[in-house]
């Protein structure tokens, strides 16, 4: 009987490495299929580990995006090896040091989605689901959103995405990608102790970003990657050392601009973008959240989920 090959983890590493080098391997993440070509063994190992539970397709007829990570053809290849990301043969950004190749693949895939997927309204935000409802964390880097997202993903919430919240412009439902979670510096240690059973990529060091690693998403999140969720809460987190947890409601008017500014395609979608955000704000409760301890955050979000009420009455809009 032929061995089962439905998940990345069903392949053994050397098999995966060969297929990856030949560009035959594709991974399904939620609604998207990425076909990948790369002959770096560390990238193969990283995929094997971080995407173990993800569906694998071998030489599929159709893939949404064809990406590759390769050595760039420049002078540097002789004294300081690099890795470059390609989408259909086109490199959208500068190469990175070679040891960051696995991370580069992740960032490249994020970029590809953000730059091309205008069938959705996409926000630079983390999102998670509980009881069919989604919480969205729009936040610039350094706000602690990834740390919070990772912690919640291991404590009662289903990971949709740590970076890309993708909303259907008609229904507003959020799609799940359930991809590896990107963490930096102190967050890495924090999450290692918080979730000792999780799998990690090797850590790499970059002068501008510091220490970077990716964490395998919880298997439950991956298994349910095709389930959407309806947004219900928008929360702006902020990590403040030694702070007591504090959840304060936010003005919706004052929330509009930060969401538009954190969206990848607000301008591109024109009035649709405007309408999506106004409808989103109508149906969501908006908060600022300050915290220092992850356990506090878990409690607060448990409370939010359990005390789910209908949104407060909003005034109607008008046209002129």
């Amino acid at each position, binding site marked *: 009987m032929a061995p089962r090959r439905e998940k990345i983890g069903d392949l053994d590493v050397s098999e995966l490495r060969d297929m990856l080098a030949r560009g035959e391997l594709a991974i399904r993440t939620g*609604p998207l299929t990425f076909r990948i070509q790369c002959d770096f063994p560390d990238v193969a190992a990283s995929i094997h580990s971080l995407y173990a539970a993800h569906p694998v397709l071998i030489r599929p*007829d*159709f*893939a*949404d995006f*064809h990406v590759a990570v390769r050595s760039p053809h*420049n*002078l540097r290849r002789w004294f300081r090896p690099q890795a470059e990301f390609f*989408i*259909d*043969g*086109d*490199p*959208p*950004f*500068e190469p990175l040091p070679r040891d960051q190749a696995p991370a580069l693949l992740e960032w490249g895939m994020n970029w590809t989605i953000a*730059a*091309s*997927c*205008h*069938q959705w309204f996409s926000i630079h935000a983390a999102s998670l689901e509980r009881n069919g409802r989604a919480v969205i964390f729009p936040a610039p880097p350094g706000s602690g959103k990834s740390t919070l997202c990772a912690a919640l993903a291991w404590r009662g919430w289903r990971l949709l995405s740590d970076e890309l919240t993708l909303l259907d412009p008609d229904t507003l439902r959020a799609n799940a990608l359930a991809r590896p979670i990107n963490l930096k510096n102190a967050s890495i240690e924090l999450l290692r102790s918080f979730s000792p059973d999780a799998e990690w990529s090797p850590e790499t060091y970059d002068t501008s970003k510091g220490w970077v690693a990716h964490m395998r998403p919880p298997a439950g999140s991956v298994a349910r990657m095709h389930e959407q969720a309806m947004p219900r809460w928008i929360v702006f987190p902020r990590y403040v050392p030694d702070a007591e947890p504090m959840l304060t409601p936010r003005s919706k008017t004052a929330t509009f601009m930060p969401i538009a500014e954190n969206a990848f*395609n607000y*301008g*591109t*979608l*024109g009035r*649709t973008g405007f309408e999506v955000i106004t409808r989103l704000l109508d149906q969501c409760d908006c908060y600022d959240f300050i915290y220092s301890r992850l356990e506090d955050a878990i409690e607060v979000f448990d409370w939010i989920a359990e005390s789910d009420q209908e949104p407060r009455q909003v005034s109607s809009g008008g046209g002129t």
Partner: protein
Amino acid sequence: MKVTCFHLLIQLLNAPEREVGLSLADWDRVLRLARRSNLMGRLAESLEACSVRERLPAQVQPHMAAALALSAHQSQAIIWEARHIAAALAPLNTRVVLLKGAAYAAAKLKAARGRLYGDVDILVPEPQLPEVEAAMMLHGWTAGHIDPYDDRYYRRWMHELPPMVHLKRGTVVDVHHNILPRTARNAPLAERLLQAAVALPDSPFAVLAPCDMVVHSATHLFHEGELGNGLRDLLDLADLMTEFSMRDPAFWPALTTRARELGLLWPLRLAFRYLVQVLDFPVPPEALVDAGAGSMADRLRDMLYLPGFRPDHPLCASPATAIAKSLLYLRGHMLRMPPGLLLAHLGRKGWMHLYKSSSRTAV
């Protein structure tokens, strides 16, 4: 296989109803090529115009929806930007002619559909350049981050100011005073183009007269150093010629006459040649004869140009393509600058390519 998907893409663009015959694997390849050649928007709009959306495979539909959203935004954005430019230049009372994509959009031509616009190109009389530049700067456009060498290159040798970037919006305007550089061997008289320009209804702008628009497009295509958008530009030419010839039966003879008058018959002849060979476009035989029969030199140029019209993509690439493209780059420049200057310029650009950070746009 490598050639086939390229032809598939062309066929699909020419006759969208044929999509019914495409397998999922075909679609996979066609979409990749279209993305790389900047033709996603155009493909999406062609399919949309044939009302075949529901018949497309489920996996293909979101990509077409995304491309439609992007191209709708682009055509809206170009109009908004044109409005801002009009507001800035209105007090000057000078003739401002929109060029290329902005012109197609403003004149509502078929060539505008599905387009991914970059900069807005405008043509103004050379004596008025300083005022125009000043007015633009007053309204928030600046010379952008340009190094002094490139700045001098633009002002001294080229037919345009260095690109002007708007501080708040980030949009870019290229202000031209001719359609070819000062140094080019066959720079036409800009006054002729400006004089013949056609005012747009309800707009402070004008666009080039139909024949001039075609000649300009052909000139731009064959004088450019990089054929990155070669296929798309060829398709634009096809659209322009189709639309203008439908409006005016006398278009074809007028076109070759005008090209000759402007001293630009040569790019038109090349345009005809490649429209026929690459797109199977029906250029009338009289026009072909009028523009000059295919010479030996033309056949040699085929080796350079034909591969250059292939999208820059692994599915179409071959060493021949890569070499053809780099030769074209050299050739494009040769047409613009005297050889001595050319070496200095290329050398510098080559060095800069390796270390300067590049910015890419969304696909």
